[in-house]
């Protein structure tokens, strides 16, 4: 019934099946929206946050989605600035994922603040010394960029494209996309970084504070780098999931291998920097403030060295190595493992840089503060995921997201073409 909207020559499931799928996920969205309404109506007392946990689950989710959404700007950077042309076959999808991540991030921020109706003060009364101000500005600007990058793809919809103006608009936007991509990269560098800065500048919090370059603590650069490194992992992961669900091959292996390879080297370089940073912090910064790092990983019911090991070794070094070595990289299973570990790793890093900071006592007579999110927090955190699934489903169904789809699925659908 909606065949008129489906890209020419593309095979899609029947509309009823599609509708049912959307309905199921839609229910989750409604749950999240209900929780969101509660929070806006009754206030943040609906959460389990408290004066020790001013930053909690949401801020973690926020940082996490932005980190994994980093695939968009990095892929864009490679495609449009460094002219890595193969990536044109995945850039659309990268942009869509980025769009989902960043729109979610903005939504979460709108829920998280105590006075949503005053949220715009962050722009209007901006304090340029605050990392959060930098985040807000760059985040929203970059979201605009993503929207701009997304528009041409939308206009390529079979019906929309019939409108000459839209057709030309899409065409022209492709033409100058490099300019947008460059701006996007610039903005991303700063907001990814300043998100890291948010933690790094908290010199009242020995676990978070880092020395740095000029006004930027090392976490600034580590966050940008990690987003660029693990973002593509997420893009590849979501592509893999989409391929599995649709039972179609959507992106050629050479593209996947290339992106994996780049991601791999980024991860390795990042994790080396991260290890150096950790060692310097643990042996110089923190002792100078009177702490042993053991203080941060003991005397509590949850946080132990395991989290440090998991983040850096298991979810950093290992995926990095897998992805830089041709043999392992081109083994689908190992690659998948690496990609998953990578995504987990970057999310874990953001968790540590938000929630563990809040948990650790700084005053010698204070105690660890652990917290469990309320269902409202969980629901509003699940919301973006559900919303993302729906948006991907819709865009995949109606837009020519994967340029190689037709070619790959023309002769013998859903088989590897080596």
């Amino acid at each position, binding site marked *: 019934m909606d065949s008129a909207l489906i890209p020419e020559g593309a095979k899609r499931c029947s509309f009823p099946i599609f509708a049912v799928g959307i309905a199921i996920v839609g229910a989750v969205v409604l749950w999240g929206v209900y929780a969101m309404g509660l929070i806006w109506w009754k*206030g*943040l*007392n609906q959460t389990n*946050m*408290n*004066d*020790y*946990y*001013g*930053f909690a689950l949401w801020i973690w989710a926020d940082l996490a989605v932005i980190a994994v959404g980093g695939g968009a700007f990095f892929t864009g950077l490679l495609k449009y600035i460094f002219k890595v042309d193969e990536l044109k076959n995945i850039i659309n999808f990268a942009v869509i994922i980025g769009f989902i991540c960043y729109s979610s991030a903005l939504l979460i921020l709108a829920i*998280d*603040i*105590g*006075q*949503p109706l*005053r*949220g715009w*003060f*962050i722009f*209007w*009364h*901006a*304090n340029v*010394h*605050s*990392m*959060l*101000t930098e985040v*807000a500005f760059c985040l929203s600007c970059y979201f605009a960029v993503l929207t701009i990058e997304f528009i041409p793809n939308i206009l390529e919809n079979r019906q929309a494209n019939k409108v000459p103006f839209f057709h030309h608009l899409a065409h022209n936007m492709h033409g100058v996309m490099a300019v947008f991509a460059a701006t996007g990269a610039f903005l991303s560098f700063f907001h990814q970084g300043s998100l890291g800065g*948010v933690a790094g*500048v*908290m*010199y*009242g*919090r*020995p676990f978070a504070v880092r020395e740095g370059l000029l006004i930027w603590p090392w976490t600034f650069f580590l966050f940008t780098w990690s987003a660029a490194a693990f973002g593509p992992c997420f893009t590849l992961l979501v592509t893999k999931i989409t391929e599995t669900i649709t039972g179609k091959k959507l992106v050629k292996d050479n593209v996947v291998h290339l992106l994996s390879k780049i991601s791999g080297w980024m991860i390795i370089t990042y994790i080396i920097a991260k290890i150096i940073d950790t060692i310097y912090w643990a042996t110089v910064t923190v*002792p*100078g*403030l*009177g*702490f*042993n790092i053991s*203080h941060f990983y003991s005397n509590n019911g949850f946080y132990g060295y395991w989290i440090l090991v998991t983040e850096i070794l298991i979810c950093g070094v290992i995926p990095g190595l897998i992805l830089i070595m041709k043999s392992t990289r081109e083994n689908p299973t190992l690659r998948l493992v690496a990609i998953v570990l990578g995504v987990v790793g970057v999310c874990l890093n953001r968790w540590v840089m938000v929630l563990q*900071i*809040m948990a650790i006592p*700084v*005053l*010698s*007579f*204070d105690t660890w*503060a652990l917290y469990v999110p309320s269902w409202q927090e969980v629901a509003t955190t699940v919301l973006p995921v559900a919303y993302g699934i729906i948006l991907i489903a819709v865009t995949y169904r109606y837009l020519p997201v994967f340029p190689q789809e037709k070619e790959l699925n023309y002769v013998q659908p859903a088989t590897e073409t080596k």
Partner: protein
Amino acid sequence: MNKENIKAHKFGMVIDLDKCTGCGSCMVSCMSENNVPFKEDESNKKDSITWMRVYKLTNGKSFPDTEIAYLPRPCQHCGGKGDHGHSPCVSVCPATATDYGYDTGIVSQIYTRCFGCRYCMGACPYHARYFNWWDPEWPEGMEKYLSPNVSPRMRGVVEKCSFCYHRFQAARDKAYYDGRDDIEENEYQTACTTACPAGAIVFGDLNNPAHRVHEIVKPDPHPASNNPNVVGKSRNPNVFRLLERLGTNPKVYYLSEREWVRKAGDNYLEGEWDNIKNHHGSESHG
């Protein structure tokens, strides 16, 4: 930003922890002075708004050698690294809703400007900042006792001790009215200071050698030899500041003759304390 203005005040306090009895007068005086709300259950101290909170410290020894001390904790009104006014909270507030008064050294909070991002709370190691998770509510009629000097806060914003800034304004206005160009020491005293039955709190201008707080603290105007971030360290061996090594440079000092209490003021590595306790307070290796 008249940082270098010599006439600038630097209000601060010193609290004698040997006199403090943990009676709670300062907490309540603060609450009623500043229209602090209360709710049905205040036993979860992690969401209980107490601008002035009295911590209970123990020396960790077992019966009968155990000891207790009480430590009142208002906002520390940090001067920030090098005492340049970039307090941990002020420097992070994205909307300029909290600001550093270079003429008073007081860290302000503008409730109508705050949009509740709570970054300042994360940045404050003293947990001196409190969020209004709920709408403030008073039993019927009780709102009649609210003071017009401090506006009640709406839900969704951060609040904290202001060193009773409205009392400073009142004193300053009076001085201006009387044609004096400055206020007297006793004209501006915080609600906790005046209430303390033990007289444990001394408040005044750390820049004014004639003020008692200055006499007791004897702040060192120069950066600490081993940590340029630390300014205003006390020259009194029994006086210390909380987490001084972080370089937050609080304007609230504490006084105690008990070594274990002074040690509890900061964090030390194995053996560090023994090396430095003799030449006083909390040295930093930063």
